[in-house]
């Protein structure tokens, strides 16, 4: 399947600082992809590059088969809800829909009106007077009614309370079921994404740490605990992601495609959150670090 987003050695430099470097990625179409990483990892930069709001300093990026921001046809294919789900505070809900209709050739007015009605948003109310949850839903309505091939959302639920968060994600998933659009959404909290993503990218310090289908990732990562053990005695096919030792016990998080046969280990499952946290806290591998030294230019 052709990827909906393809980046090759992609980099972006702001003034003297690399915000994203050496980013090589394929995001498959038809998936809901979670982009996870700590604040400052380069998530927003990557999404803004994909939306055409920024131009790359190095490397290439292709979205839905075209160069981001290269023309009206390209813009129509991609929806982007930027961080904090921005709206125009002085414009009413109805104004926003009118703006959406004027600016987007593929605008689905019936869908937009139906959603606003179901959400019980007052069309005459200025967006600045809406609650955070309502504003996010208005931004999502604009993103869906545009009928893009790919909808990207930057930290869409970070500012929402748990109920608004659930409702927002529910509506987003309903749109995926109804229109089959591809979605990329970022969050610094994996818990927000756990249920809705079937594809995951963990980005740390501008580098992709792990990427793949959630199902596959969960199947190949295991937590092993047992008597204290020297890591050099492990089979070659077990890659240690994290290790901790007490004087008698060793606990490991390993990645392997093969079953764990050693009876000394008790083998446990990982939640997606455990898996992501292990990668987030992993020190950079010596010899595998292609990042230009960010620290040097500071």
């Amino acid at each position: 399947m052709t990827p909906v987003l393809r980046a090759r050695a992609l980099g972006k430099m702001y003034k003297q600082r690399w915000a994203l470097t050496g980013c090589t990625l394929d995001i498959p179409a038809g998936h809901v992809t979670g982009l996870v990483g700590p604040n400052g990892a380069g998530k927003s930069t990557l999404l803004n590059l994909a939306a055409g709001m920024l131009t790359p300093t190095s490397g290439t990026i292709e979205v839905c088969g075209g160069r981001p921001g290269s023309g009206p046809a390209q813009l129509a294919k991609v929806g982007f809800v930027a961080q904090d789900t921005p709206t125009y505070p002085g414009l009413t809900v109805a104004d926003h829909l009118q703006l959406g209709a004027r600016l987007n050739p593929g605008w689905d007015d019936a869908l937009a009106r139906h959603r606003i009605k179901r959400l019980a948003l007052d069309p005459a109310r200025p967006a600045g007077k809406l609650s955070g949850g309502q504003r996010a839903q208005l931004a999502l309505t604009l993103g869906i009614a545009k009928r893009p091939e790919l909808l990207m959302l930057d930290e869409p639920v970070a500012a929402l309370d748990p109920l608004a968060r659930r409702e927002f994600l529910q509506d987003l998933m309903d749109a995926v079921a109804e229109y089959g659009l591809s979605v990329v959404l970022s969050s610094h909290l994996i818990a927000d994404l756990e249920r809705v993503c079937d594809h995951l990218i963990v980005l740390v310090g501008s580098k992709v740490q792990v990427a793949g289908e959630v199902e596959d990732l969960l199947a190949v990562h295991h937590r092993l605990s047992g008597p204290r053990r020297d890591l050099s005695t492990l089979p070659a096919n077990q890659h240690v992601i994290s290790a901790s030792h007490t004087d008698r016990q060793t606990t490991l998080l390993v990645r392997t495609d093969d079953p764990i046969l050693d009876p000394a280990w008790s083998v446990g499952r990982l939640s997606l959150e455990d898996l992501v946290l292990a990668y987030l806290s992993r020190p950079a591998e010596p010899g595998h670090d292609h990042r230009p030294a960010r620290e040097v230019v500071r």
Partner: protein
Amino acid sequence: MIEFHLDDRSGVSPYLQLVQQVRRALRLGLLREGDRLPTVRDVVAQVTINPNTVLKAYRELEHAGLVTARPGAGTFVTATLADATLTAAYGPLRQDLRRWLAKARLAGLADEDIEALFMTTFQSATQEDIA
């Protein structure tokens, strides 16, 4: 109709949780031949889950010969897992297990000891089967 729920802390992927819930319902006789499974959109609304995950679970169930998708009508149960011979074996096995539990308690084992002993034995027996 079956109602799905998801446990975020189980470490079992959402897709597998759906599959297991259908299989369990079939085994317990809660779902029978001819029953319709909820539509993908219903499940999405019920548990806030990715529709692809629901489709994947349904495809797996279809592949296992347990359900059939009829286009435009829905996904229907076509087989049962409630096995009368298995159910018949439950009674005597449970009785054995009760006797064993009484013996373990008599030997001074606490609930946690019993659980740990069972799990390690179960795991090593399973691993011996694999190896």
